C-alpha cells in the first residue's frame, strides 16, 4: 500500500513547502486557521493519540504567543482594559491570536515533515543539490550513533578505572570533558581508516554519480501536479484578500474568487488524508474480492 509517506521525497517536499509557504506568505487568518486544522489532522492521523505532551506544549506556546502581542503592542481602537497605564486592545489581542495560529500551524506541519522526511529522504534531496554535501552529511549521520555508543563505553571504562572521585556535578562535568577529549582522539585517529576505505574504493578519482533508492512513480507526478495547481488557485484566489487589524479590524469581502482560494487550500491540507482514505478503500475493495 503506497501512502503519502511512501511518495518520492521530491513530491513530499514540494507538498510541505507549498502548504507551509502559503500559510506564511498569505498572512491571511482564514488560511492560517485552515492550515492549523489541516496540520493537526495530519499529525493525529499519523500519530494517533500519543504524544499528548506535544499538544500541551503547543497549547501553552499558543497562549503565550497570543498574549505577547497585546502586552507589547498598544495599537488598535477598542480598549479592553488598562494595565500599568497601557491600554490592552482587542485588535492587538486578535492580531496575536492570528500570529500564534500561523506559528503553531507551521510547527505542526514541520512535526509531520520530520516524521515523513526521514534522514534518508532529506539526504536524497540534498544529494540533488549537492552530492558532496549529502555525502558529508551521510558520513556524519553514520558517526553520530557510533560516537554515542563509544561515549557510553568510555564512560564505563573511566568509571571502572576509578577516575570519578565524588558524585557531584563538578566531577561529572570534569568527567564529561575527559570523555570528550578521549572521544576526539578516538574519532580523529580512527577517521583515517574511513578515509583510506573511501580512497581504496575510488573516492576522489573523478566525477561521482549518485545512487538512490527512490523512484518517481506516476502517483508522485500526479501529487506534484495537484499541489502546484491547488497552490496557484489558492494564491490567485486570495491575492487581494488582505486583513487589516489596526486601528479597526476589517475583513475582506468574501467573493467567489476568495472562496475558491480557501476551498482549494483546504483541499491541499487534507491531500495526505485523502490519499490514505483512498488507499484504505482500495485495499478493502481488493480484500473483498479475494
Amino acid at each position, binding site marked *: 500500500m503506497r501512502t503519502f509517506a511512501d511518495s518520492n521525497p521530491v513530491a513530499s517536499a514540494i507538498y510541505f513547502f507549498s502548504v507551509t509557504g502559503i500559510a506564511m506568505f498569505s498572512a491571511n487568518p482564514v488560511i492560517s486557521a485552515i492550515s492549523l486544522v489541516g496540520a493537526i489532522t495530519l499529525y493525529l492521523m499519523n500519530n494517533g493519540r500519543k504524544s499528548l505532551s506535544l499538544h500541551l506544549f503547543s497549547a501553552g506556546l499558543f497562549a503565550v504567543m497570543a498574549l505577547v502581542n497585546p502586552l507589547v503592542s498598544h495599537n488598535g481602537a477598542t480598549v479592553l482594559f488598562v494595565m500599568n497605564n497601557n491600554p490592552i486592545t482587542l485588535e492587538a489581542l486578535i492580531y496575536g491570536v492570528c500570529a500564534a495560529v500561523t506559528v503553531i500551524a507551521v510547527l505542526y506541519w514541520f512535526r509531520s515533515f520530520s516524521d515523513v522526511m526521514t*534522514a*534518508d529522504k532529506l539526504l536524497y534531496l540534498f544529494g540533488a543539490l549537492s552530492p558532496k554535501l549529502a*555525502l558529508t552529511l*551521510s*558520513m556524519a*549521520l*553514520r558517526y553520530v*550513533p*557510533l560516537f554515542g*555508543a*563509544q561515549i557510553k*563505553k*568510555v564512560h*564505563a*571504562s*573511566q*568509571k*571502572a*578505572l*576509578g577516575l*570519578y*572521585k*565524588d*558524585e557531584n556535578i563538578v566531577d561529572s562535568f570534569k568527567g564529561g570533558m*575527559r570523555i570528550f*577529549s*578521549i572521544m576526539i*582522539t*578516538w574519532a580523529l*585517529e*580512527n*577517521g583515517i*581508516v*574511513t578515509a*583510506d*576505505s*573511501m*580512497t*581504496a*574504493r*575510488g*573516492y*576522489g*578519482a*573523478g*566525477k*561521482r*554519480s*549518485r*545512487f*538512490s*533508492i527512490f523512484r518517481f512513480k506516476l502517483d508522485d507526478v500526479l501529487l506534484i501536479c495537484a499541489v502546484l495547481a491547488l497552490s496557484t488557485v489558492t494564491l490567485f484566489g486570495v491575492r487581494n484578500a488582505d486583513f487589516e487589524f489596526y486601528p479597526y479590524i476589517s475583513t475582506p469581502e468574501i467573493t467567489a474568487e476568495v472562496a475558491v482560494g480557501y476551498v482549494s487550500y483546504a483541499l491541499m491540507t487534507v491531500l495526505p488524508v485523502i490519499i490514505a482514505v483512498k488507499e484504505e478503500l482500495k485495499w478493502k475493495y481488493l480484500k473483498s474480492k479475494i
Partner: protein
Amino acid sequence: MEILKVENLTFSYPLTTSPAIKNVSFAVNKGDFVAVCGATGSSKSTLLRLLKREISPLGEISGKIIFDGEPLSSLTPEKSASEIGFVMQNPEHQIVTDTVWHELAFGLENLNLPQPVMARRIAETAAYFGIESWYEKKVSELSGGQKQLLCLAAVMVMNPQVIVLDEPTSRLDPIAASEFISALKKINRELSVTVIISEHRLEEVIPISDKLLVLDNSVVKSFDTPRNIAANLSDAKLLYSMPYAVQLFHAVNGKGECPLDIREGRRFIEENFGRETTALPTPKYTHSPQTAICFSDVYFRYERNLPDVLRGLNLIVYENEIFCILGGNGSGKTTALSVAADLIKPYSGTIEIFGKKIKSYKNQSLYRNCLTLLPQDVQTVFMRNTVREELEGAEEEAEKLPVDFEKLMDKHPYDLSGGEQQLLALAKVLAAKPKLLLLDEPTKGIDSASKHRLINILKQLKSDGMTIVVVSHDMEFACDCADRCAMFFRGEIVSVDTPSRFFTENNFYTTAVSRMTRGIYSNTASLSDAVKLFTLNKGGEQV
C-alpha cells in the same frame, strides 16, 4: 595465469634506517587463495597496503608490482580502484555512509556509473551475500559480523579480480569470524576471485589456502603450500598461530604428512598413538572458602520493554581463582561483568563483592584498591598523547609486564600494536591495585604470541593473590588459563567446571584438541594434556 607479481620489492618508511619490506618477490595465480602470516611487526600490513595503490604508505619504494600484466602504478584510476579490493581490520571505521544500501553504492558512485548499472550490481551483490533482509537498515543497527560482511560486499560490488584483506576477522567473535571466512571461501571458489589475506588466527584459513606466504623480519621466509610450510616449521611464534592440528604434530615431533584441520588431526592421532592410557589423572580442584563475587538471583534488562538479559543469575567466584565465562553473543556474559563492576544496576537480586553488598561500596570506593575492569575496547582507557604520560603512576606495574615500554615511551598509544595496547591498558588498570580484576574479551584483536604472554601474566597475577574473572569467546585461551569455566546461556549459567571436564563434556562448544581426541581419550582439552597423554601411550614410533 599470473594475476599479481611482485619482484624485488623493497620499501622503507620516511626517516627510518632499515627497510620495512626487503627484496620481496612472489607471484599469485588467478583464483588463488593466499594467506600471509608472520609475527606482529613483520610488516604484513605494509606489504598488503603496497598492493593497493590508493592507500600505499608513503616512503621509498623500489622493485616492481605487476597487476594483470601492467605495472600497478600505470593502471587507470578506475581499474585500480575497482579491480583490487581492500578490506581492513575494523568494520566500524571502514564503513563510510549511514545506510547499508548507500555503503554498497559508494564504490560504484565513485566510478561514476549510471543508475541502472548500479541498481543491477547492487541488487545481485546484496542477493549473493544475503544482505537483502537488512538492505535498508542503518549501519548502526548491524552486528559486528554483518558490518564486516558489508565491507566485503561493498568491495565485491565493484567486481574486483583480487581482494586483499588485512586481518579482517580480528575484531569479530569466533562465530562471525568463521562465517566471514566461509563467505571468502565462497567468492574464491565460485567466482574465482583471487584472495590475499593476513590473519592472526590461521585455524580456519589454512585449510582453504592454496599458498602461505611467511614474512619474517621484512623478508619472505617461505612461500609454499600450507602443508609443506606446516611440516617444516621452526619458528615457535609462528607455530602459535597455526591450527591446533599442526601444533600437536610439532609438539610430538610428528613425522610424515602434517595434519591441517581437526579431521586430519584426529586421523593422525588414531594412526600414531595407542590407547593404553585413555585419561590423565585429574587432581581435585580446591578453592578458597571466601567468595570474591556472589550473585544471587540477579535479573537485569537494558530497558523496560526489552527482554531480560540476566534471568535469575546465580554465580560464585572464589577468591584467588581465574574464572572464565564463556558463551555465545547475547548470552549475557558482558552484561554480567558490567553488573559485577557496578556499571549497570540489576532490577532484582543481590550482588556481593568480597562478602560485602555492592550497594554498600559508597562514593566510588568499589574502584579503590578493590575491583577494576579492563574493557574490551582498550582504546577507551587511553587519555594522553604519549605512552609516557599514560603510564604516569603506573610505572611499577608496567615494569612487571613482559613488554619493553621503554622504547615505546614517546609513541602515541594509538600507534602501538594491538598486543602492546592491551598491555599498556592492563598496566593502567593494575595501577589501581585491584584485588579483583575483570577482563572483557582480552584476546580479541591480539596475535597468538601476545595471547600466550597474557596467559602467563594472568597466572602470575593469580599467584600474587589476585582474583581474575575473564569473559571470552576464546575457548583455547580459557582452557589454558582458567581454574574454572562457566557456560552462559540466555542469561543464566548452565554449567560450571574445571576446564578439562568442562570442555570434554561439551560436544560443540569446545576446544580443537578436545574435538580431535573425543572418543579416543577422555578429559583431554588442552594441548599440553594431549601431549602428556601421548607420551604416556608411546604409540607410534616417534614420541
